[in-house]
């Protein structure tokens, strides 16, 4: 819009921008500062803004509490949840987009409205009966409830923008349906595949409820471990903030790679009629 802009207005605008951006940033800044403070500094009243940073808390958290093991558990569960979601979800999404199988798309949306706890109660009973509580199988199965529909929604959205003529010309050149899909369609939709993978990974990484009940000593994921820390050392703020920083850093970094597509990814399934 061609409204006049004076230097004073620009100055006020940027002041507003900075003040607004401080609000989301402040919480992360405070988390990192708490992680870098000694116990003495963390208990100081009034809170110190200037202090001697220490890496002790982060080192203690990583070394002393098997945090590496929890990180590995989270990674294994998220990795397999994403891979299985892609293997099953990509061809399904392509067929839904190509043949306009709207009923399947709609029923996937319903799956999202069902509270996780409605899935958790039956699965807990099944896994308890089969002695599979505290196994990767239990965690990956339940995380798939979240990641598989998400991958499909996102990919339907991306596949709908692939011109159908591409698959046809690939098949005229002698490729089968599967070959055409793998070597022609998927490379064109690679931004979508990447976005879907990253979002599904973050959803699994951040998952708390399923893991709270279905993980145990051998498979505990990071969110559950961090939750356990809270009851063990309520006043060790440096340690708690270190754990919070370590768990939340991977998703924050990952989002930067899919920044361009993330809103489209998060709203797909709801935006289409």
């Amino acid at each position, binding site marked *: 819009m061609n409204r006049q802009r004076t230097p004073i207005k620009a100055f006020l605008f940027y002041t507003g921008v900075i003040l607004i951006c401080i609000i989301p940033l402040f919480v992360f800044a405070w988390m990192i500062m708490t992680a870098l403070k000694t116990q003495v500094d963390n208990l100081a009243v*009034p809170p110190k803004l200037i202090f001697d940073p220490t890496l002790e808390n982060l080192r203690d958290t990583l070394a002393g509490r098997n945090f590496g093991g929890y990180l590995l558990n989270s990674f294994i569960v998220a990795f397999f949840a994403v891979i299985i979601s892609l293997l099953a979800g990509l*061809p399904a999404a392509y067929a839904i987009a190509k043949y306009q*199988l709207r009923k399947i798309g709609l029923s996937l949306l319903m799956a999202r409205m069902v509270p996780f706890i409605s*899935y*958790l109660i*039956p*699965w807990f009973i099944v896994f308890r009966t089969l002695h599979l509580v505290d196994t990767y199988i239990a965690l990956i*199965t339940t995380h798939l*409830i979240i990641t598989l529909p998400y991958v499909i929604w996102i990919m339907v959205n991306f596949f709908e923008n692939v011109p159908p003529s591409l698959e046809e010309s690939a098949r005229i050149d002698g490729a089968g349906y599967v070959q055409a899909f793998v070597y022609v369609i998927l490379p064109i939709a690679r931004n979508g595949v990447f976005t879907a993978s990253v979002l599904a990974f973050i959803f699994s990484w951040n998952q*708390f409820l399923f893991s709270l009940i279905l993980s145990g000593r051998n498979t505990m994921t990071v969110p559950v471990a961090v939750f356990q820390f809270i009851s063990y050392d309520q006043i060790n703020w440096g340690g708690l903030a270190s754990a919070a920083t370590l768990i939340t850093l991977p998703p924050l970094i990952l989002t930067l790679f899919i920044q361009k597509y993330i809103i489209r990814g998060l709203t797909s399934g709801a935006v289409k009629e």
Partner: protein
Amino acid sequence: MVERKVKYLFPLPALLLMGIIVVFPIGYNLVMSLHEWNLAGGSGMEFIGFKNYLALLEDGRFWNSLKVTAVFTIGALGGQVIIGTLLALFFHREFKGKALVKAIFLFPIAATPVAVSLIWAMMYNYDLGIINHMFSMFGLPRLAWLASRSTVIPALIITDIWQWTPLIMLIVLASLESLPQDPFESAIVDGATNFQILRLITLPMVRPAIVVAAMIRSIDAIKTFDLIYVMTQGGPDIASENLNIYVFQKGFSYFRMGQASSLAVVLFTLVLVVNIVLSMIRSTTDSSTEA
């Protein structure tokens, strides 16, 4: 035909998988809700019809959890939609650093809810928390926040607004950026004021996007678990126990699987009804903008 093979074979693995991981537990959940089953007591399932549901009518803790769910959802969702839309309107212009602002607003959305809840719980701490410190700097009284019945829900709402307003903001901003320019140009030519343009052109055109954003958020806000469980576990007493937390306690603290299942069915019904209402609002806004 080969063509038909693609149509049915490509979705088959996903459909089979969804049948096992999604459809089966939903069915099992419904069946269980008609049974009395105390997992801790060692007895088996006993069919009792709709007694679990009827018992809810006289369960004060159930009504309390419904009230908490309603107050939390309305407060959080209302705050997010209003603030998110205002921020989107504010940022809807070309300026240096816009990409950076968008990146900053992605952080709360992507952050692990357990970590966010933990940090906010520390910030709300009575003695050492930064929030009470700032309050006393401005001469305001220190509050007990999460420890007091009267402030626990507002405190949880503030945290939820902090984490999810950015999502609404980014969805509405994306919609604003994709609007056609013609109506705005002709309105300026006709001498419309900024406020008139906002009220008569901009807001009606982004209303569908706002409703979609509200739908996405409402689904998750009604079912909020991580935030409340990490920060208060439903306390003090049951002052912040929403329906989802109550289902969890029934199932995994008391092991009353039948009762927990019936509560879960009620929770799902609630999400469904709210979404049907919102999609009705959405279809009326869609047709009014096209007319």
